[in-house]
């Protein structure tokens, strides 16, 4: 399991800087477009989450791009490594990188939108929760890239993550229990479905050539 996590962490880490750099021009652009007179905290939070999800697409896309079904998955199966371990390892590695991406933006964004009320710790905790919610589905979509190289990752990623985007922007403004329930349900259902479907496609991939 440790070997899997190390390899997946390496792939995810290689996606970190490009993903970070992808979001920075967006921060700059949005800070120019932002009407400072109407600027409020909710507005800034929405920008943060938009950039965060935009970069997350890149993390999963690039990271799974480094995988090659004939290289890696085939060998895992010959060594009798269970698909759920591969799934768990991918989730763990990408969860860590998604938190790092969020942390990096939390450093950059207050520079462009300075405010005294920037709830940095709450946003960080929320980023961890959102990262936990999005990684299982992100890993599943990433695996589908191995099936179909022309798979339009972003086309699926953002619509599926819409409830998270809404929950994140609302919860970063105030504590709404209903959004917490939605987030929890998303995490449980997303993880369960992703784990099942991931294993199915993993087996299909290792059988096909």
């Amino acid at each position, binding site marked *: 399991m*440790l*070997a*899997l996590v*190390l*390899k997946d962490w*390496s*792939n995810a880490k*290689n996606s970190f800087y490009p993903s970070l750099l992808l979001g920075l021009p967006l921060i700059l652009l949005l800070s120019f477009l932002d009407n400072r007179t109407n600027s409020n905290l909710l507005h800034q939070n929405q920008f943060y989450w938009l950039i965060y999800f935009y970069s997350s697409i890149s993390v999963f896309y690039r990271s799974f791009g*480094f995988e*090659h079904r*004939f*290289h*890696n998955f*085939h*060998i895992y*199966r*010959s*060594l*009798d*490594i269970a698909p759920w371990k591969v799934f768990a390892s991918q989730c763990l590695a990408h969860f860590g990188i998604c938190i790092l991406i969020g942390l990096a933006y939390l450093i950059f964004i207050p520079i462009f939108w300075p405010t005294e009320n920037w709830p940095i710790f709450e946003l960080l905790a929320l980023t961890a929760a959102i990262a936990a919610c999005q990684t299982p589905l992100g890993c599943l979509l990433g695996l589908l890239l191995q099936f179909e190289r022309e798979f339009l990752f972003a086309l699926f990623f953002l619509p599926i993550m819409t409830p998270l985007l809404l929950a994140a922007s609302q919860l970063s403004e105030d504590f709404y229990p209903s959004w917490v329930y939605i987030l929890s349900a998303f995490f449980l259902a997303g993880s369960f479905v992703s784990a099942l479907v991931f294993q199915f496609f993993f*087996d299909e991939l*290792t*059988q096909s*050539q």
Partner: protein
Amino acid sequence: MSLKVTDLRLRRAHFELGPISLELRAGECCALIGANGSGKSSLLKALLGRLPTTGGSLSGLPRQRAAIGLEPLLIESWSIQGFINWYGLLAGNPRDETFLSELKNYRSMKISWLSSGWKRFVEASCVLSHSFEIYFLDEVFVHLDPRRRQQLEGLIKRRLQSGAMVILTAHSADELEKLSFPCRQIHLNERAS
């Protein structure tokens, strides 16, 4: 320890394979020979228990097994040493460093710098440096120059001498003509027996 395959059949989208029968004992090697698309890799997968068969039986498949796929399992951004360490962790058993002696001057090299022949050699040496009961080596000599091929044959021979089973695949019998160890051949375009 003996792997026994009796009248094994499998169906893929574009062909049917079998019936194939073979028996492999400890220290023996068997080569599956066939043209592109003849089902060599599919048969390996079926032997590994990863592809459903449509008939026949398979018994005695060892628990400790390793495979090398058509494409090398390498992480391009790592060094050879990094990959060797990582595979050791993945395999979960100690490696025999003497199998890696040919790599000693190259261990710090990044894998992305290597030619396809070198990648194949690095992966095969690394896998063979770990002790398994059976090795499935899919087109393992592809891309290798005569010198590397000879070295790799030496490593396979050592594993056979220590009692492991080896199943190879190749496109033609000519490729296996001058092997330095005995290897039974099964032609997939003919009925195997």
